[in-house]
């Protein structure tokens, strides 16, 4: 199995390499771009925290949230204004940026600005979206649908590969356990890693209770640190968390985003768990408990 290493970042931004035994990378930011001022303020604060922790990071924020629960939920600033802000954040802070896109027609513009493009979990098997993501030529953050088995993500990977892109990061963001409830099956991570692509754990969406509050989603933020430690110990190459300075008033995912006051603490633990896992691999060897070996 060929282990792929992703390099996220073009031009003058600090490139982030993800995969195999490289340092843990962080992908994070506010769920939606709320305003230019807010996006810049968050980029500055997160950047300072990541520098203190010593963790490479990619700024994530979306310009159009197309999977909100209600028709009047905040959608975002739209593709043009949103991408202008992301481009300016790249220039100002030298950080790679990622946004998802839900409409294949937005793919080219998203790829032109973003260092990485993200495929939303609900659309993870949508051929037109996967093809559009692949055609950007950028690394792709592909989230496992809450309804998908980890082994069937291989079909989505093959769709991207068939469109000529071999830079994929596969993420777990929880799996439906009945209605309005997610669980994390950490075997997802080694199973998806068997594709040879690096894997990511999306901690803040994993604690979501999808549309549990009638017309919005709830969440159990208190479990974020537990799941982060477990995922990093299990084996991930990147950690994804949405964060906000004022979660109660966040315009998207208010019940799941991590308050930025906890970010340094959580990232520090994730980094330590990741490094300890690598030490264990050096000491005890690769995991090889397998009935066929």
């Amino acid at each position: 199995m060929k282990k792929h290493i992703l390099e996220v970042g073009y031009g003058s931004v600090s490139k982030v390499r993800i995969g195999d035994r490289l340092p843990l990378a962080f992908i994070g930011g506010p769920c939606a771009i709320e305003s230019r001022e807010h996006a810049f303020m968050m980029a500055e604060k997160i950047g300072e925290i990541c520098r203190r922790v010593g963790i490479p990071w990619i700024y994530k924020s979306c310009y159009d949230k197309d999977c909100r629960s209600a028709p009047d939920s905040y959608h975002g600033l739209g593709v043009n204004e949103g991408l202008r802000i992301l481009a300016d954040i790249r220039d100002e802070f030298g950080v790679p940026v990622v946004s998802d896109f839900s409409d294949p027609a937005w793919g080219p513009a998203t790829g032109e600005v973003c260092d990485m493009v993200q495929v939303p979990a609900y659309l993870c098997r949508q051929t037109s979206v996967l093809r559009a993501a692949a055609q950007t030529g950028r690394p792709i953050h592909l989230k496992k649908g809450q309804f998908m088995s980890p082994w069937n993500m291989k079909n989505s990977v093959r769709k991207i590969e068939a469109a000529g892109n071999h830079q994929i990061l596969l993420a777990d963001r929880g799996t439906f356990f009945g209605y309005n409830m997610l669980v994390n099956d950490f075997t997802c991570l080694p199973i998806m890693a068997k594709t040879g692509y690096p894997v990511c754990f999306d901690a803040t969406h994993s604690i979501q209770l999808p549309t549990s509050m009638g017309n919005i989603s709830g969440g159990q933020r208190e479990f974020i640190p537990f799941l982060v430690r477990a995922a990093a110990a299990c084996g991930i190459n990147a950690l994804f968390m949405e964060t906000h300075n004022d979660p109660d008033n966040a315009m998207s995912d208010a019940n799941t985003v991590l308050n930025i006051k906890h970010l340094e603490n959580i990232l520090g633990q994730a980094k330590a768990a990741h490094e300890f896992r690598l030490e264990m691999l050096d000491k005890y060897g690769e995991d090889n408990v397998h009935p066929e070996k």
Partner: protein
Amino acid sequence: MSTPKNKMLVCDVMLSKDRVPVVQEEEILKEALEEMGRTRLGLVCIIDANHKLLGILTEGDIRRKLLKVQKPFSAFLVDDALEHSIRTPTTIRPDDTLEHVVDVMGQRQIWDLPVVNDGGVLLGLLHLHPAVQTLLGRIE
């Protein structure tokens, strides 16, 4: 004048490549089983883009795996076929004598032998039944 039976070569009797079940290396087990079902040979050859033989997968391999692999069936079927194949199968050359390779089949209790060239490229497959029938003089 026909060739004496003990001088006949593999290339005289082997199945040509279009009659051999073949899948590419990235194909999944489910596709390999479907390809296996296309013929009645009970195996499939796995090749790369240059037609080099990478492994073979037989019905016996699947039978043994079914008793050993404990993962869900849907996960098993989406595994790469290559993952469950024999990576270093016994192979023969087109200019090997039929008599010799039938001996090899007998010694190793195998019914099918992939035929490859010196570069490991798959050229065809020798199946036991036509080989023996030819040696017995029932097929010219």
